[in-house]
């Protein structure tokens, strides 16, 4: 296969395609409903209540989807700590998915909190309750987004500045680039430590709920399991995005990168499964899985979606078949997302007799935030050099227009 990805290119495709307009439209709708929510309050726009006070925004857009947005973090570990150099061409894509996953997650969080104007007080260290897991998540995610993610995503932007032809812009971009060069190890270490902290804290959040989270999920190991799942979903997201992009825009298929990503992902899943089942056996609750009540069914579904694809991905043959790779990664990511989502909502039984399902407006808002991520992704890959491409594609692009122009 001659699909090896050599470098990043800017796609010369038109921006306003039907899918882009669809996602942009959904995003616009979601944001409009968000504005309405700010005016009238959460009660009119969501199905949230005093029992299930956390719903789609916190539990899906933040807890579940930022795990998908851990691609930049996970691939960076492979590329920089384990020194697997072949991942460098996909780093930009990975950190872009992270930026978008976290960005829209934090946007959803901003719409979800009831009194956002008091966020300013969070800047005053005297108000900090360092015992609070949610405080840790808030501060750490913000720090990650503001100090690490945006800097990590600068290179394609700087590059475009450099090529713009304006000498001032060229100079500025070079200055910033030199700064990045000098501080790179410190920056990337931050981009490792910060997400480790908050991705695990996202798990610890539900630990405080104690017996109200079903024993099949409630464990002191929640932070570890959530952190490992962040890796798994990070890899999965990068895999899926690259596969879809390769399909859509003829980028070629880099079997080495995709195969290795899938392999590492399946190993980490095995480690995750070991901790998960080891914990269940240690606490003696594995039998609950055979109750066939709704919790046991969620558990069996989640386990099936995680276990079987991961087992299959251990096999090289499966990893080398793009269709199977995509399918299995897709199923694995569904299972992983289900795992991240379940302790917060499906397995959470508040005291009393509460029922929750997101309202239509809530679903539209949540979908809108996700659609925003997709729309911005489409915009970004057609404006900046982010997606990796194989030699064939590069040649085709070069024929259309030389690379040293915008």
């Amino acid at each position, binding site marked *: 296969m001659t699909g090896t990805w050599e470098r990043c290119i800017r796609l010369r495709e038109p921006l306003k395609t039907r899918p882009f307009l669809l996602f942009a439209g959904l995003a616009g709708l979601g944001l409009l409903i968000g504005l309405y929510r700010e005016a009238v309050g959460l009660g009119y726009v969501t199905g949230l209540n*005093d029992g299930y006070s956390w719903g789609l925004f916190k539990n899906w857009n933040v807890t579940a989807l930022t795990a998908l947005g851990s691609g930049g973090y996970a691939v960076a570990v492979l590329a920089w700590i384990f020194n697997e150099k072949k991942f460098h061409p996909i780093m930009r894509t990975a950190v872009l998915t992270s930026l978008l996953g976290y960005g829209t997650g934090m946007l959803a969080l901003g719409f979800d909190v009831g009194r956002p104007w008091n966020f300013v007080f969070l800047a005053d260290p005297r108000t900090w309750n360092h015992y609070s897991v949610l405080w840790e998540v808030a501060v750490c995610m913000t720090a990650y987004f503001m100090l690490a993610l945006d800097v990590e995503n600068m290179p394609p932007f700087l590059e475009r500045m450099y090529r713009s032809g304006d000498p001032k812009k060229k100079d500025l971009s070079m200055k910033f680039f030199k700064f990045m060069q000098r501080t790179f190890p410190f920056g990337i270490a931050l981009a490792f430590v910060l997400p480790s902290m908050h991705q695990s804290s996202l798990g610890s959040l539900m630990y405080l709920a104690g017996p109200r989270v079903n024993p099949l999920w409630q464990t002191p190991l929640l932070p570890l399991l959530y952190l490992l799942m962040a890796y798994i979903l990070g890899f999965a997201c990068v895999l899926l995005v690259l596969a879809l992009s390769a399909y859509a825009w003829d980028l070629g298929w880099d079997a080495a990168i995709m195969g290795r990503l899938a392999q590492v992902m399946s190993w980490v899943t095995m480690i995750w499964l070991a901790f998960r089942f080891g914990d269940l056996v240690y606490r003696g609750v594995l039998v609950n899985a055979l109750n066939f009540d709704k919790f046991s069914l969620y558990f069996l579904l989640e386990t099936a979606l995680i276990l079987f694809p991961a087992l299959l991905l251990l096999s090289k043959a499966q990893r080398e078949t793009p269709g199977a790779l995509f399918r299995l990664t897709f199923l694995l990511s569904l299972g992983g997302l289900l795992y991240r989502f379940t302790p917060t909502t499906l397995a959470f039984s508040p005291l009393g007799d509460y029922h929750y399902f997101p309202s239509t407006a809530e679903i539209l808002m949540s979908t809108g935030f996700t659609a925003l991520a997709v729309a911005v992704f489409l915009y970004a890959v057609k404006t900046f050099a982010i997606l990796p491409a194989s030699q064939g594609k590069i040649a085709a692009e070069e024929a259309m227009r030389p690379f040293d122009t915008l």
Partner: protein
Amino acid sequence: MLSEVISSTTEEKSATFRNGVDRRTFLKIVAQAAAAVGLTGSMAAKMVAAVEKGARPSVIWLHFQECTGCTESLLRTSHPGLAEVLFDLISLDYHETLMAAAGHQAEAALEAAIKKNAGNFILVVEGAVPTKENGIYMQIANKTGVDMLKHVAASAGAIVAIGSCASWGGVPSASPNPTGATGINQLLPDKVVVTLPGCPANPYIFLGTALQYVALGKLPELDELGRPKFAYGRTIHEHCPRRAHFDAGRFAEEFGDEGHRLGYCLYKLGCKGPMTHASCSVLHFCEVVDAWPIGLGHPCFGCTEQNVAFNLPMLKPAEIVRPTPPATYAPVTAPQGYISPIATGIGGLLVGGILGGGWMASKKIAKKEEPASPGVMRSKGDTTGASGKE
């Protein structure tokens, strides 16, 4: 003589002429009077002492825009009866309905009483005072009500507004209030005015207030509208004999229906009890048990309250300002939360769409990216754009 006029109209107890009554009977009368209005025995003694000293306080009673119903209701008391009050406990120096004098003689009596008892007399006002066009809508002896009120009130020791008209305007003040009828406390802003609203006011509230003043020299505790708290501190709803029916949800729905006959709560027929501060439910009228609106089967219409009586429709249900729990209890857990069927449908569609989309994408990726069998030309693949899945 005044006493002769009165004696010909009162039924029994004519032997309460001051001169013809022995001390024992007199003490009994005073004790009865005190008890009837809730004053203790020691206060009765004080009253006796005050009266024996010959210090029967002077009372000047002015009438303005009124129907004389409050005076009429006062005539229908028996403990003490009006005769006892007039002869033994107070000195009624001016009362347009009850005095024998008329014309200039009456005016002279008024002026004399004011001069003689300046600073000490009790001014009782019955009726609202018209204020439009300088108060020409009610004049006595060429003096407008406003002027008369201000003139007399200037030297009064205590001022009592009896009835809703004097308290806040009453029926003359009903919309559109063509005469500008107002309560007297609005016209005497710098004076303490005891208001006893009601249509008519319950006479025993007046007697209680007046006799307390006589006995102790001070007025009862008043609320922010000048109403004595002992009578107007609670709403009818708060001490209604039919309250248990209200709490249990037993209502008369129509006049004459089963519930009405059984004496159920009249809330749905427009009872303004919840909005009305008064004591009618515990202090009935005309000395007949249950002689008050609700007791007779008619909803209270809020005659003491300015924004209720002659303002809100009689049969329109009242607003409950301080609701209390009903006769039923909350269970230990009550179901909460609403699940929208439409949202469930949309959620289902979304999940289905994602699953379907993922499956289709995997098929398309397989077709495109997997090496074709030898000899078959691989198409460049369609570029219909991203299938739109993350």
